[in-house]
């Protein structure tokens, strides 16, 4: 089948009905098996979930700044598990908001954005393949993901509402309705994550197989663009880590509904077992959510610096070592959990070691812009900011890795600041950059640069105003997941910071509006995009924008690595992977 697709030309698609009859609307847009359509399905769905997760965050921030004040406009319309009759958020409902904000952002936004959207879109196009190895599986993966989103969010409508034991759902709180009071919501959480896990496993299998088997001739592993490398390693992590979460979610579901006691202290259950299972998944998950972002940022940095990526192989080895080490650091979430304290020393050590490849990557990004000819496009601004924000998130992580300091700042806003610097300033900034960067390829039109820059500036400023002061809140001893900080003596003085953070967060939420308008306007009215608007070297830019079904007219042949920019002796400053180097070009062997 792959053979027939390879020889399809987009221009001829409409004419060649004999080979490719026009697909029905259902097959073209709903149950599509084309990786590009599936990527776009993921994109639109994930943007919707991003708005939902963002609104939940606004609810959280409103409560923290103005505890007890009725929610403006919609307060009285909200269900009774969430608000009092006066429309103010109540503590139990607040826990639900926190839980669903994090669950949605992790499982319905960041993961599918990076892996579902860009994994699907980029892997076949960048390796020179006509599609994924298992197109049916790919479509199935999307619809399972969609279903999991519906299941998770439907808990809004059940009695007692959202699950309220945090996205980490520590047992026994999560395992007994008498403790959490949200049996239906918590059960839906388990089912939703189980389905979400199936989607991830289906996707991961597909990505791994595709990268191993379907590379174009000449596309050696060390000629893969870095996003593909990152997504490949990520897919392996997914395949090994997600089944553990699925199993744990199934066990938790049984504890909740069938009276088993895997995780309860009575009947020989073990509360810490949940934490070990969860974090055995949860820490590779952290890297699942950042590695693809690193790959994307590397790509954008190299293209817009007009330079080869600095230390390509070092970058690949760093990705691989993060992938391996990522499986032996989970215990650093549990220094104060009651786990054997000798283990803490071990996990502290592995955690310090895993910081090394991250440092290597940072230095290589700086090496990439060094000596470049930097084009300040919108995607570049996001990629540059990604590096700085990742540095802040990485450095703040060192505080937690030092076990004694963790005694003080564990479960405070310091960790909230840390995770948002990595996941928002890191992953989400990379996602924004990637959308601006690959939008021309996806939709055949350009996004508006000026509005892109405005979006970037607003997002960058308000992001820092929102999350940087959270470090201070954490150092001041503000615990996570408390609905009413001024109830505590030591937190009363820092309440003005909470108000500042919340106002910044509202502005950060509003900063998405220029992006959304730009995005939807450009789909229909943006200027037509050329094949290769950024003068890039990777294979996706050698086909029309958007590429036709089957991607490549003829299977491309790859002659060299992905980042041959500014090669001496050439007129143009980029050498696409499928073009043999001209004789006078002096390509370096590296």
């Amino acid at each position, binding site marked *: 089948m792959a053979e027939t697709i390879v020889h399809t030309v987009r221009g001829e698609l409409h004419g060649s009905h004999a080979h490719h009859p026009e697909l029905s609307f259902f097959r073209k847009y709903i149950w599509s098996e084309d990786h590009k359509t599936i990527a776009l399905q993921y994109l639109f769905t994930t943007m919707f979930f991003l708005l939902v997760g963002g609104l939940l965050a606004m609810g959280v921030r409103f409560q923290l700044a103005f505890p007890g004040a009725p929610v403006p406009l919609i307060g009285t319309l909200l269900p009774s598990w969430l608000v009092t009759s006066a429309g103010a958020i109540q*503590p*139990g409902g607040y*826990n639900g908001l926190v839980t669903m904000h994090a669950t949605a952002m992790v499982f319905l936004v960041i993961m599918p954005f990076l892996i579902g959207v860009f994994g699907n879109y980029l892997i076949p196009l960048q390796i020179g393949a006509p599609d994924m190895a298992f197109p049916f599986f790919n479509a199935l993966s999307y619809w399972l993901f969609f279903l999991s989103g519906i299941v998770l969010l439907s808990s809004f409508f059940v009695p007692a509402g959202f699950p*309220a034991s945090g996205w980490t759902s*520590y047992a026994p709180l999560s395992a007994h309705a008498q*403790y959490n*009071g949200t049996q239906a919501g918590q059960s839906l959480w388990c089912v939703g994550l189980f389905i979400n896990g199936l989607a991830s496993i289906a996707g991961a299998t597909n990505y791994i197989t595709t990268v191993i088997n379907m590379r174009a001739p000449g596309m050696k592993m060390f000629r893969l663009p870095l996003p593909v490398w990152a997504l490949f390693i990520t897919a392996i992590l997914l395949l090994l880590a997600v089944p553990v979460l699925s199993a744990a979610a199934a066990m938790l579901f049984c504890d909740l509904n069938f009276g088993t006691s895997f995780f309860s*202290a009575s009947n020989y259950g073990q*509360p810490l077992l949940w934490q070990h299972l969860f974090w055995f998944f949860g820490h590779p998950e952290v890297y699942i959510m950042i590695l693809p972002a690193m790959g994307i940022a590397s790509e954008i940095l190299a293209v817009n610096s007009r330079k*080869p*990526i600095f*230390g*390509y192989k*070092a970058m690949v080895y760093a990705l691989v070592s993060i992938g391996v080490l990522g499986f032996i650091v989970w215990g650093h979430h549990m220094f*104060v959990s*009651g786990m054997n*304290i000798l283990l803490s*020393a071990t996990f502290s*050590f592995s955690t*310090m*070691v895993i910081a*090394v490849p991250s*440092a290597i990557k940072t*230095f290589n990004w*700086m*090496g990439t*812009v060094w000596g470049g*000819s*930097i*084009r*300040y496009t919108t995607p570049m601004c996001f990629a*540059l900011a990604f*590096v*700085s924000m990742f*540095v802040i998130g990485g*450095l703040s992580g060192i*505080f937690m890795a*030092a*076990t*004694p*300091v963790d*005694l*003080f700042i564990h*479960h*405070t806003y310091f960790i909230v600041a840390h995770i948002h610097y990595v996941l928002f300033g890191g992953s989400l900034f990379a996602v924004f950059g990637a959308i601006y960067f690959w939008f021309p390829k996806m939709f055949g039109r350009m996004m508006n640069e000026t509005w892109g820059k405005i979006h*970037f*500036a607003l997002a*960058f400023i308000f992001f820092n105003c929102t999350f*940087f*002061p959270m470090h201070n809140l954490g150092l*001041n*001893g503000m*615990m996570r997941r*408390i*609905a*009413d900080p001024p109830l*505590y003596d030591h937190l009363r003085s*820092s309440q003005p*910071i909470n108000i500042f953070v919340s106002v910044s967060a509202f502005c950060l939420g509003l900063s998405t509006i220029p992006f959304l308008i730009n995005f939807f306007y450009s789909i229909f009215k943006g200027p037509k995009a050329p094949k290769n608007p950024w003068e890039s070297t990777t294979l996706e830019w050698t086909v029309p924008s958007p590429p036709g079904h089957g991607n490549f007219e003829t299977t491309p042949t790859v002659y060299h690595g992905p980042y041959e920019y500014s090669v001496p002796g050439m007129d143009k*400053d980029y050498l696409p992977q499928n073009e043999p180097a001209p004789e006078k070009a002096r390509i370096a062997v590296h």
Partner: protein
Amino acid sequence: MTQFLSRKSGSIALLVIVFVACGVPAYAAQRTSGLWWMPDVASKGGEQIDQLTYFIYYLTGAVFVLTQVVYIYFLIKYRAKRGVRATYSHGDNRLELVWTAIPTAIFIGLWGYSNHMWWDVIHKEPPPGTMEVAVNAYQFGFSFQYPGASGKLGRSDVKLLSPENVFGNDRTDPLTKEDFQSGVLELPVNRGVRILLTSRDVIHGFYIPQFRIYQDAVPGRTIDWVWFVPTKVGSYDLACSQLCGSGHYNMKAQIQVVSEEEFDNWYKQKLAAAGNASAANAPAQSK
């Protein structure tokens, strides 16, 4: 390529503004009033931990400033200019080696330092004269059990824990009869306290920011390795910092650190009250 040059100065100005804007909250963090910074430390271990916190703070701060200064310098210096091509370089293995080796050395050194302190603050035997207090967490509060005149808590076991016997006391141990309970954690200043931490229902946190101490209370276990020495007289909040349900936001208890004398008075009073109560109960039980 020209389209990327057209508005370059505007873009650079924007980027600079944006990075300066990032500096404002960073500067704010330098302020060390109570609003911005750690609450005053009030325990011995906490003082040590603060040294490490400051060490990491200055280390990471220096790394941050250094890398960002170099980075921003690059971003300004190497902006696209007409007729200037980027340097063609795939990297430098010696540099890779340098920036692999140096961070590795720093991180391992840091691990050594922090692990040494972890040993010192947590593993070391508490000082002589350390008092034991049992702490039991529940949805949504804490209760405390003090040893009787013997100075030793009676035997207890989490397996005996029940709604009537929240500390899981072993009633056959004569020492148990002397133990008394309190709703406030009253502590003498400058004397070691070791806590025996249990939970009745779900996981709770035992968090005292001024003491720089945090430990989860896990149902089904007694966690017996946490000890600290309060160094300042005062009233503090003991906060639960592990999400434990709808009342979590307000789950706390009062800690009173008082002078040795005051503590002895309080202790004697409590002990006498407990003695009277058990004396009153005893005949009733024998009937």
